C-alpha cells in the first residue's frame, strides 16, 4: 500500500472514532469547519496562485445569511445552509469580477478592501445584531429526517460535509479545468498564448473558492450556535492564509493540518497565555514566511524527494 493510502486510512479511523476517544466534539467540529475553509482557500492560493486577503467576507456573509434565516425566518437547516452558500457564491462573483482585473499584490489589496465593505455592512445592517452578532441558533434537523441537536450527530454531519468537499476539491484539481488553473498559476502569459480565456478560468475558481468558504462559514455558525463580527473580520482572512501556508499551500491535505494547528493553538494556548495567542500567531506567520514556505506537507514531500534523488529537488 502506498504511504498516502495508509495515511488516509488512519485519518479516517481517527475521524470516525473521535466521539469515542474523548475528544470534545464541538472542538473537532470547529476544527473541521476551519479545515474546510482553508481547503477552499487553498483552491485559490495553492492551485491558482491568487492571494486573496478577503476570504472572511465569504465565510462570514454565508454564516450570517444562514444564521439569520434560521433565527429570524425559521428556515430549515439544509435550505438555510444552501441559501448561505448561494450568498457566498454571488458575493464571490461580484468581488471576483472586480478583483481579477489586477494581479499579485494589487489583487490582495483589492480583495482586502472589498471584504471591508462586507464587514461594515455586517456591522451596521439592522438584521445582523451589530457588535453582538447573531446568537442562540438552533441546529434544527437534517431535512426532517434526524435531529442535529446532539453533538455526536452534528459531528458526523460535519464530517460528511468535510469529506464531500475534500473529494470535490480533489476532483476539481485533477480535472482538465484544474490543470489549466495550474498552468495559469505557473505561467499566465503562456496559458493566455495557448488560447485559454484566463479571466474566465480565474473568475470561476474565485467563485468556487468563495462558495466552498461560504459552506464552511454556514456550518460553523450552526455548530457553535452563533456568528459574530470576528468571523467576517480581516484577522479571519489572515488566519485562513496562515492555515493554508503553514500546512502547505498547493497540497491537498496541508490546509487541514494547518487548520488543526491554528485552531488547537487558539483553543488550548489561550487558556495559558490569554491574549498573547495572537502575538504567537503573528510570530508563527513571520517564521513560516521566512523559513517554512512550503508548509508541513510541502516540506515532507520535499524530504521524500530528496531521499529518492539524493539531492534537493530543483525549482
Amino acid at each position, binding site marked *: 500500500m502506498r504511504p498516502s493510502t495508509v495515511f488516509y486510512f488512519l485519518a479516517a479511523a481517527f475521524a470516525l472514532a473521535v466521539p469515542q476517544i474523548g475528544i470534545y466534539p464541538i472542538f473537532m467540529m470547529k476544527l473541521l469547519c476551519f479545515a474546510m475553509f482553508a481547503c477552499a482557500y487553498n483552491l485559490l492560493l495553492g492551485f491558482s496562485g491568487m492571494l486573496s486577503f478577503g476570504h472572511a467576507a465569504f465565510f462570514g456573509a454565508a454564516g450570517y445569511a444562514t444564521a439569520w434565516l434560521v433565527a429570524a425566518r425559521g428556515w430549515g437547516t439544509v435550505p438555510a445552509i444552501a441559501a448561505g452558500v448561494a450568498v457566498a457564491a454571488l458575493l464571490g462573483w461580484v468581488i471576483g469580477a472586480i478583483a481579477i482585473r489586477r494581479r499579485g*499584490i494589487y489583487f*490582495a489589496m483589492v480583495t482586502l*478592501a*472589498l471584504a471591508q465593505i462586507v464587514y461594515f*455592512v455586517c456591522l451596521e445592517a439592522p438584521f445582523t445584531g451589530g457588535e453582538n452578532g447573531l446568537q442562540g441558533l438552533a441546529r434544527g434537523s437534517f431535512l426532517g429526517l434526524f435531529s442535529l441537536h446532539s453533538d455526536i450527530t452534528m459531528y458526523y454531519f460535519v464530517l460528511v460535509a468535510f469529506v464531500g468537499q475534500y473529494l470535490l476539491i480533489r476532483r476539481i484539481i485533477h480535472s482538465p479545468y484544474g490543470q489549466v488553473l495550474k498552468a495559469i498559476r505557473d505561467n499566465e502569459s503562456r496559458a493566455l498564448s495557448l488560447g485559454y480565456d484566463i479571466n474566465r478560468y480565474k473568475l470561476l475558481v474565485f467563485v468556487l473558492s468563495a462558495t466552498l468558504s461560504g459552506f464552511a462559514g454556514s456550518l460553523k455558525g450552526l455548530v457553535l450556535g452563533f456568528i459574530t463580527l470576528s468571523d467576517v473580520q480581516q484577522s479571519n482572512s489572515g488566519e485562513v492564509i496562515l492555515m493554508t501556508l503553514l500546512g502547505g499551500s498547493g497540497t491537498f491535505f496541508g490546509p487541514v493540518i494547518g487548520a488543526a494547528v491554528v485552531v488547537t493553538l487558539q483553543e488550548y494556548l489561550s487558556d495559558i497565555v490569554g*491574549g498573547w495567542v495572537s*502575538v504567537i500567531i*503573528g510570530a508563527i506567520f*513571520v517564521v513560516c*514566511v521566512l523559513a517554512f514556505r512550503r508548509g508541513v506537507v510541502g516540506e515532507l514531500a520535499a524530504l521524500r524527494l530528496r531521499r529518492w534523488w539524493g539531492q534537493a529537488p530543483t525549482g
Partner: protein
Amino acid sequence: MFGIPVAVILGQLMLGLVNGAFYAMLSLGLAVIFGLMGVVNFAHGAFYTLGAFAALLGMQWFGVNYWAALLLAPLTVGILGIVSERVLLRHLYRLDPLYGLLLTFGMALVIEGTLREIFGVSGQSYPVPPALQGALNLGFMILPVYRAWVILASIAVCGLTWFLIERTRLGATLRAATENSQLLQAFGVNVPLIVSVTYGGGIALAALAGVLAAPVVLVTPLMGSSLVTVVFAVVVIGGMGSILGSVVSGLALGVIEGITKVVYPEASNVIVFVIMAIVLIVRPAGLFGRE
C-alpha cells in the same frame, strides 16, 4: 444645501481634511517603500500606532514634550523599522512580493498584539500642546488651531518628501535604485543601505503621522489596523508607484469621506472602498498610475 447648516458641512470638511492628511502621509510612505522595495507594507498601520504610543509613553515616562516627540518618536520607530528590515524583510527580496505582504502582516499582528496585552484596548488621550490649543473664529466657522496645524504640517512634510525624492541628489540615487538596482550597485552605490534607509524613512513618516494624530484621536493599540485598510484602498485609487498620486488622493478621499458623513452617514465607512471599486473598473491602473 440639503437643509444642512453650512457650518456643519465646513466642520466635516475640516475633519475630512485632517483624516486626509493622515491618509496622505501613510500612503506616501507606502508608495515610497513599494516603489523601491516592491514590498506592500502591511505593518504600516502598526508603525503609525507605535509612533503615537512612543509620543504618549515618552511624555508619561520621561516627560518628553510634544515638540520633542515630533522628532524623537519618528526617529525611534524609524530605527525599529530599519532593524526589522535588516533582520526580517531582507531575506525575501528575491521571492514573490506576496511574501513581503504576508511577513509584514505577521509583524503587524505581533506589534499590535503586544501593545494590546500591555496597555489594554481602552484608549488613552494625549493632551493638545499649549501653543496649539484654542480655536480661531473665521467668521463663517470655528477652526480649532490644532487641526489647522495637522493639515499644514502634513502638507509641508509631503512637499518636503516630494522635493527630497524629485529634486535632490539623494532622491536621484533612490529613483535610480527603483529603476535598476543591480546596475546602480555596479556603479559602486551601496544599494542595501539605501533600501534600509528608505524603509526606515517610510516608517518614520508613518510614526510622524501617529504623533500628529495622538492629540486628535484616542491612542489605542488598534488605531492603525483599521486605518491601514483604508490607506491600501487610497493607494490603489492613486496608483501604487505615484508619489503625487498618493498625496492628492489621500487628501481628496479624506474630504469625500467627510462630506459623506454629512450627506449619508451610514456609507461613510465604505465610501473609499466603493470609490476604489469604481476606479478599478474604469481605470485599473489607478488615477495617477501607469500599467
